[in-house]
């Protein structure tokens, strides 16, 4: 937001060095503060440069022709500079336009997260590497929780998935390098399989985003962008080390990046290993059961994560191309005393070690191959994204007879294998100076296989094909209109499934028979959906006003359509409904944001109406002693929003406060008047941040205190539990120090989460259902060493 009121000056002075080449000296400053800017990227065709601590840079160029450079820096508007060495014998000052007026170019190249967020009429938040580094938690989504409107569904200490304004699972899409992340998002105990250290730039859209991303982005998007292209003829590496007391985490991640002239590469290896996490209680009281804990450890919640990624890219002033290959592998245990809701006894000695992973556990491997190419033509910019993903997830538990099922032969309870192929093609062009038009085509093919002895969802194939057109119309400098239209067609083919054991059936003629029960059928269903969006952004002085109306949709999932099986651990029988329609949602978003100097304040209310929200409804019936849960559709409304305000109290002390609230209500159906599931409570965050004077070799010392105030959630829907409110205090200390004469400063972060060791429940945590509190006090140390 600050970028709105800032602009950039670049001073270039050129001196003739030799007959054939010239050395251009320049510097970059912030227009408002007149302070030099460090780390600004000056990217040319064959070369790129970075400004130093004094904002200065030096370019050496052959003399024959002119060169084009892009100047990019986080939080500042991007500028293009043409340098002609032949004419450069005097100092040239170039002023970059303020970001607010630089909207006349839809650029896919090097925009800052904050900048992109402002250009959209949808409500979005840009997240930079600095934010991620300064707020890092155990998983990417836990780090992003600090953003108002964003929460998580967590299971244990290492896994979580995004919730935006109370919508999660398949209603929020995660996109990495233009490709939608496809895993088992529908699952309660699934976590996002992305290496958080490999993420440097992302954008969160808090609202309907089907227009650009198709089905599923009904509640919002977490859009992870590729990191910036490294400077030409450069090599850098960093080492990230972290350790935590609560779950005895040891984490090491090493990344490197480099570039010759036009070819560049990046790579990263991450390994994290953690023990059982500790809760601030000696015993868990769940219904009338009491589970005693040893040393406050939640037994069998240990796990590990091992990730590797490598990307290779090519850049010229006509083409930018990058191919990413990555693999994320993780395994973690589930709390041993209850599997789902089911209380379990076991002969396994869970307390012999807090680091071993016994049954029940799950392991997951996610492989990704993503290719992106952008062609910069004179009139058109073409963008191609190709993706292949393989997700393999296995849930293991002790083989135990259930209902009519005898003791199974092994521990492989559920196995999911998913292969996803994605194709996106987009063209951006400007028919005249007023319009920026994007048209695009997206297609995705998913093949979902199942295995194991427990049935929950059928095998299915899903193919979607969508096309869209989007126009950004600049009415005048301050007023921008944006609108678009999209059509999607989708096909779902479910495969029949029979139990591997016989169940007893009481026939009408008083006889009984034992049959292999059919759990799903061969079905082919197709869906057609229109998405649309219309909005404006108005930028005046220090205030941005946005309004957006969007229609988005979500195709039903195979389990919602065709499941017909027992979920013993949740004590329920889940029954699909083959006649479900696509979920359709209409949402009105407004945002008013004011940023003047160090003062920021804003509000972003929304109102949302679902024609037919798909909901797993607990009925009054039983099937083989399990309560029948039936997928059905109800009308629903949601409203709420976020408030934020912040100011520097002194030049070194800053206070920020945010508030987030979501109200949901089912307005038809058997649960009329109840909320939608997983409705987050009213919550606020007050942050104090104090800059401290340098101490010995430590500089940029910043002390932060966060007070999270969360109200009780008394608005629930069966089978949820009410959750009391809580106050939570976190501290952190960030600092930098010189550790090597040639390298950048090392960064050190010390944080204390849950300082007072407060026992509290997170309403949207998986373990909330069995009355397991959130982790207790945690002291963490993280070190980032650049090389």
């Amino acid at each position, binding site marked *: 937001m600050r970028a709105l009121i800032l602009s950039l000056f670049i001073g270039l002075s050129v001196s003739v060095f030799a007959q054939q080449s010239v050395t251009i000296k320049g510097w970059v400053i912030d227009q408002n503060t007149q302070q030099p800017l460090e780390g600004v990227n000056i990217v040319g065709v064959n070369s790129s440069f970075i400004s130093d601590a004094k904002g200065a840079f030096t370019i050496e160029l052959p003399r024959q022709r002119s060169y084009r450079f892009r100047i990019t820096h986080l939080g500042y508007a991007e500028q293009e500079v043409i340098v002609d060495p032949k004419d450069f014998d005097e100092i040239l000052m170039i002023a970059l336009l303020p970001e607010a007026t630089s909207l006349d170019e839809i650029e896919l190249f090097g925009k800052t997260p904050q900048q992109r967020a402002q250009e959209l009429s949808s409500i979005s938040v840009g997240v930079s590497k600095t934010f991620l580094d300064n707020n890092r938690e155990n998983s990417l989504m836990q780090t992003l929780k600090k953003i108002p409107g964003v929460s998580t569904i967590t299971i244990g200490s290492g896994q979580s998935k995004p919730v935006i304004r109370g919508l999660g699972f398949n209603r929020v899409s995660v996109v990495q390098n233009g490709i939608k992340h496809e895993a088992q998002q529908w699952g309660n105990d699934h976590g996002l399989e992305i290496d958080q250290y490999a993420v440097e730039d992302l954008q969160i859209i808090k609202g309907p985003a089907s227009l650009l991303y198709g089905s599923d982005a009904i509640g919002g998007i977490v859009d992870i962008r590729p990191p910036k292209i490294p400077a030409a003829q450069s090599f850098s590496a960093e080492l990230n080390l972290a350790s935590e007391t609560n779950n005895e985490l040891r984490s090491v991640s090493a990344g490197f990046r480099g570039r010759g002239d036009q070819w560049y590469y990046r790579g990263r290896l991450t390994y994290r290993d953690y023990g059982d996490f500790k809760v601030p209680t000696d015993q868990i009281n769940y*219904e*009338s*059961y009491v589970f005693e804990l040893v040393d406050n450890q939640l037994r069998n919640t240990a796990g590990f994560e091992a990730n590797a990624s490598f990307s290779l890219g090519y850049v010229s002033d006509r083409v930018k191309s990058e191919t990413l290959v990555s693999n994320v592998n993780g395994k973690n245990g589930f709390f041993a005393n209850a599997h789902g809701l*089911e*209380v*379990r*006894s*076991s*002969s396994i000695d869970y307390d012999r070690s807090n680091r071993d992973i016994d049954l029940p556990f799950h392991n997951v491997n996610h492989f990704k191959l993503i290719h992106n190419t952008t062609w910069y033509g004179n009139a058109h910019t073409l963008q191609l994204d190709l993706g292949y993903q393989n997700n393999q997830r296995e849930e293991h538990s*002790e083989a*135990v*007879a*259930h*209902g*009519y099922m*005898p*003791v199974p032969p092994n521990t492989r309870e559920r196995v999911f294998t998913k292969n996803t192929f994605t194709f996106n093609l987009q063209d951006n062009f400007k028919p005249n100076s007023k319009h920026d038009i994007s048209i695009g085509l997206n297609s995705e093919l998913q093949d979902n296989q199942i295995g194991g002895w427990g049935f929950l969802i059928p095998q299915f194939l899903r193919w979607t094909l969508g096309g869209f057109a989007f126009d950004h119309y600049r009415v005048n400098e301050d007023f921008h209109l944006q609108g678009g239209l999209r059509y999607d067609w989708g096909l779902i083919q479910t495969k029949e499934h029979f139990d591997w054991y016989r169940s*007893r059936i009481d026939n009408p003629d008083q006889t009984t028979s034992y049959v292999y029960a059919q759990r799903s059928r061969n079905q082919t269903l197709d869906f057609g959906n229109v998405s649309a969006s219309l909005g404006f952004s108005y930028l005046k002085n220090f205030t941005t006003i946005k309004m957006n109306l969007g229609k988005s949709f979500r195709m039903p999932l195979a389990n919602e359509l065709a499941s017909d099986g027992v979920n013993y651990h949740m*004590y329920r029988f889940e029954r699909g409904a083959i006649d479900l329609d696509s979920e359709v949602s209409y949402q009105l978003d407004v945002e008013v944001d004011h940023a003047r100097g160090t*003062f920021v*304040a804003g509000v972003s209310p929304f109102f949302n109406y679902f024609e037919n929200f798909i909901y797993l*409804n*607990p*009925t*009054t*019936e*039983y*099937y*083989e*002693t*399990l*309560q029948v849960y039936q997928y059905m559709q109800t009308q629903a409304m949601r409203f709420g929003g976020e*408030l934020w*305000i*912040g*100011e520097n*109290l002194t030049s070194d002390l800053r*206070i920020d*406060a945010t*508030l987030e609230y979501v109200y949901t209500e089912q307005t038809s159906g*058997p*649960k009329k*008047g*109840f909320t939608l599931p997983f409705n987050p409570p*009213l919550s*606020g965050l*007050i942050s104090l941040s104090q800059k401290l004077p340098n101490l010995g070799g430590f500089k940029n010392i910043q002390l932060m205190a966060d007070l999270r*105030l969360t*109200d*009780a959630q*008394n*608005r*629930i829907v*069966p*089978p949820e539990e*009410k959750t009391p*409110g809580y106050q939570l205090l976190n501290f952190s200390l960030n600092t930098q120090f010189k550790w090597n004469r040639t390298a950048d400063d090392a960064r050190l972060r010390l944080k204390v989460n849950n300082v007072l060791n407060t026992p509290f429940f997170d309403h949207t945590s998986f373990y909330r259902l069995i009355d397991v509190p959130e982790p207790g006090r945690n002291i963490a140390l993280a070190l980032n060493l650049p090389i």
Partner: protein
Amino acid sequence: MIKKIHLIVFFALGLIVFGCTETSELDEEKPTISVSYAQGFPQACAQLKRGETYTFRAKASDNLGLASYSLGIHHNFDQHTHDDQPEACEMDAVKSPDNPLTLLNTYSVEGAPLEDELTISISIPNNVDPGDYHCAFSVTDVTGWQGRTSVDIKIIE
């Protein structure tokens, strides 16, 4: 500047005091089911003889109306679970099932009463494996809430 700070303090205070609990017309109460009364059957650690017929009894109640019952009996030869009763039962050695008793019965309740007693006659067949069993009762109300209880029992020869 001072005005802005006032605004922040006001905002922060507003956060702290915001905590109104709304009164709701909705049914937010789960039904309950229990065998913890004199006639309740089976009681924890009860021993049931093969070939005998027993009357299982459990009392249920709800604020709005009861809808359905379920009664399940499954073997616990591997001791994979335990009941929610206060006393711990003495377990036999872990063993493999041969012909265990599996009972998965459901019953609907007529007229949505606020209180009801489930009374079911169950015969223990002569040919089932003796040993430790787990007996689980559950009940739903008209809204779709569920209440459960479970009892460890033993089937003897």
